[in-house]
């Protein structure tokens, strides 16, 4: 069972990798490369197999997303909870690392030393959720509730991440950005949005994966009726598009700051829950 789950996850990831690699290479480039490989290794069937595998995996990839993990229903095949948690923790750790890097990079290039933090106080849309603020509170709260909170936070970030990806692209094209900086770092502005953009795209993808994983965990952990925790809506989209440069940068700063914090929260909660549920608080 776990293998099926893992295979599914792996298949999706490899499909994603293949897709992304194709995007990077460009399929024509790929096809151009292979004939050369084939001609150089005429007497071997290796390159043919390689092409075959690649093409077949591409074809299969299209079907992976629609392939259910448990075709017979959620109760017939179960991935062990421990593996689900391991997977979830790896994802949450990764997402937070990316968010922290993205924030640092943005701050370094656009807003460093300009006191944007003062405006970022109390600006996260998820602050309304009753998430625990220290260890005691986190240990007091019921694990199911905490899991639902985690899922709510994750879901609430779907839309902001989507808009972040869209708007970061516009960030580098704004000439005003470069003027306002006035530092030697302006030389690197062209690169920074690309790094930020790649990270944003990656975070968006992984966030969805983690949300799915959380749903599976909740399925297994939930004893009572399933209740859907309402998740708060993010309303900061208009300010990302505002014309005024400072306001726009402030909006980005806020968003990235909140993303860094919330991803850390999720990571921390999941590690707590893993030790609680799987190892009985004896990690």
């Amino acid at each position: 069972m776990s293998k099926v789950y893992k295979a599914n996850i792996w298949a999706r990831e490899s499909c994603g990798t293949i897709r992304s690699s194709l995007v990077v290479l460009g399929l024509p480039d790929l096809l151009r490369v292979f004939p050369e490989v084939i001609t150089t290794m005429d007497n071997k069937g290796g390159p043919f197999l390689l092409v075959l595998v690649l093409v077949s995996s591409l074809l299969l990839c299209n079907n992976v997303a629609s392939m259910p993990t448990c075709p017979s229903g959620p109760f017939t095949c179960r991935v062990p909870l421990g593996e689900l948690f391991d997977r979830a923790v790896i994802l949450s750790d990764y997402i937070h690392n990316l968010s922290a890097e993205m924030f640092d990079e943005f701050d370094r290039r656009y807003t460093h030393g300009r006191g944007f933090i003062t405006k970022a106080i109390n600006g996260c849309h998820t602050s309304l959720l009753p998430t625990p603020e220290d260890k005691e509170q986190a240990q007091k709260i019921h694990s199911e509730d905490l899991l639902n909170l985690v899922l709510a936070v994750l879901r609430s970030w779907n839309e902001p991440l989507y808009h972040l990806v869209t708007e970061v692209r516009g960030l580098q094209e704004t000439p005003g950005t470069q003027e306002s900086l006035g530092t030697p770092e302006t030389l690197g502005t062209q690169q920074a949005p690309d790094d930020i953009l790649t990270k944003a795209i990656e975070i968006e993808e992984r966030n969805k994966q983690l949300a799915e994983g959380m749903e599976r965990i909740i399925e297994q952990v939930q004893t009572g009726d399933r209740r859907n925790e309402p998740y708060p809506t993010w309303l900061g989209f208009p300010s990302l598009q505002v014309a005024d440069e400072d306001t726009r940068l402030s909006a980005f700063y806020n968003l990235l700051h909140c993303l860094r914090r919330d991803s850390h929260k999720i990571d921390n909660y999941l590690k707590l829950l893993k030790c609680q549920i799987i190892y009985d608080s004896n990690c």
Partner: protein
Amino acid sequence: MMESARSTGVCVLLLFLHVHLLSGQSPPEKPKISKCRSKEKETFMCWWKPGLDGGLPTNYTLSYHKEGSSFLYECPDYRTGGPNSCYFDKKHTSIWTIYIITVNATNEMGMSSSDPFFVDVTYIVEPDPPMNLTLELKHPEDQKPFLWVKWRPPTQVDIRSGWLTLQYEVRLKPEKANEWEVHFAGKNNQFKVLTLYPGRKYLVQVRCKPDHGLWSEWSPESSILIPDDPTNADPTVWIFVAVLSVVVCLIIIWAVALKGYSMMTCVFPPVPGPKIKGFDIHLLERGKSEELLSALGCQDFPSDCEDLLVELLEVVDNENQQLVPVHSKKHLDQGLKPKHLDLDSDSGQGSCDSPSLLSSHHEGPQESPSTFHTPEGAEKPENPGKSGAHTWDSQSTSVGGRVPYFCADGPKSSTWPSSQPPDPRSSYHNIADVCKLAMPPAGSTATVLDKTDTCAPTSLETTETGAGEEATEQRGVESFHSQTDPDTPWLLPQENTSDVSAKPLDYVEIHKINKDGALSLYPKQDENSNQAEKPGAPKASKEYAKVAGVMESSILVLVHESPAPDLALFEEPAEEAPPSLQQNQEEKDRAAFAMAPSTCKLQLGGLDYLDPANLKDSFQ
């Protein structure tokens, strides 16, 4: 009155201020919050640096408010962290919340506040170093001994509940070394070190880092002495390895020395040395001064030239074949004499290589698969009858017209102008062949002509008069063996061009040398048959006046002595199978001669002496 009172007041004030200023008292300078740290993500501490206190006792207070609340708090604990610090205990610590902290310095003169300091406990976690670092040297039975490093996490960090996850790093070094060897140990509480030098004292430290936090300081050093291993076999192993490698090196050197020369000349072809016309180094070596002198000055052939025809010249076409041209010094010298001039001008390379000759005769190897004169037999034992010197007459003409250059590889063919009219196929010996065969005077060391030399593309052409065929022969003079037996006739190896890979060797036996210094050559199949036929009187022979030169490395170009296309010299019995060297269709010769009467001759004429060194060059 009033004015005086005012001025007095001002004076007093000024005096007062002056006194104060002189005494150095002032309001305190702005303090600065240096850093905040949390050891376990449950409490945290902040430190500040006071500014100048203005000479008065200054009181510092820390005040803060949290994100989302405007309520101003004061530092709950100024003592735990030491002077100029504030300790926030668990009750006062909230994670994922920004604290806005300011420090105020107050003295009698005034007060100053620091800039607000924003801190979120989430990102300032720096634990204590790990504790209880223990070192243990273990000696498992079948394995090398290793050092087992163990430690405990710092006390305050809560790992059990998963609130914090630590990763560790170990570093060690021998006591006297400068660089630490750092190892990442992951989440384990132990680590095994395998790379140890016995007999040294090692220092070990460990540190930790929470996920998304800062590295701790290094723990205090622990040391351990690795005992010497008496049964250590390493030195003997090293001695054994060293001896073995020395032996191997000696073997290699010996092998290189044996074959060194051939290898070296293969890799680094020797530079052709200077040569003197008609001067044979080998003659010098042998001490035959008579021949030497005669080579220099004497123009006459000995009356009886048959004695001089001693050597067989083997010309081999393929790469792998070896040609053994042997020929007597005497007639070689004499034969070569007339050609000294041009030869020298080419530094021994012979005009065979000259572009003028080559350019006009470029024909691809595909031109026609060279077929030997003696396709009937790849060899020429069929013409034992051929003997005598074949003079190469304006082979220059024949060759010049269409000089087939003979390159060793490929279906190149050389045509030897032969005086065999009945031969349907004309084979022209390549001038290059001639050149090459012109060779080394007696005693030339055997050199292997490397057929793979890049010759100019050989255009083989047999000038055919009537038949229009092209008989191409491949031939290359592969090697010239040192002349050990002066009596062995010249062998001009001829190859069946149709059988390039099969490498038939055709030898042309040098029958005699005539007055003109022409070599009369036997076509010969191989050495054995050559030897067998040697005693027999050659039935026919062609006379070649002289060796024009050696071309590339595999072709000896023989030139007929007579300037005019004198085909009378060519005599071949009809029954003779067309040998490669000597045979040629007369018509073809004529035609060939007619074609380029003059071009080749000049060049060929000079190719009378070939420096052995050149041959060596080309051959190896």
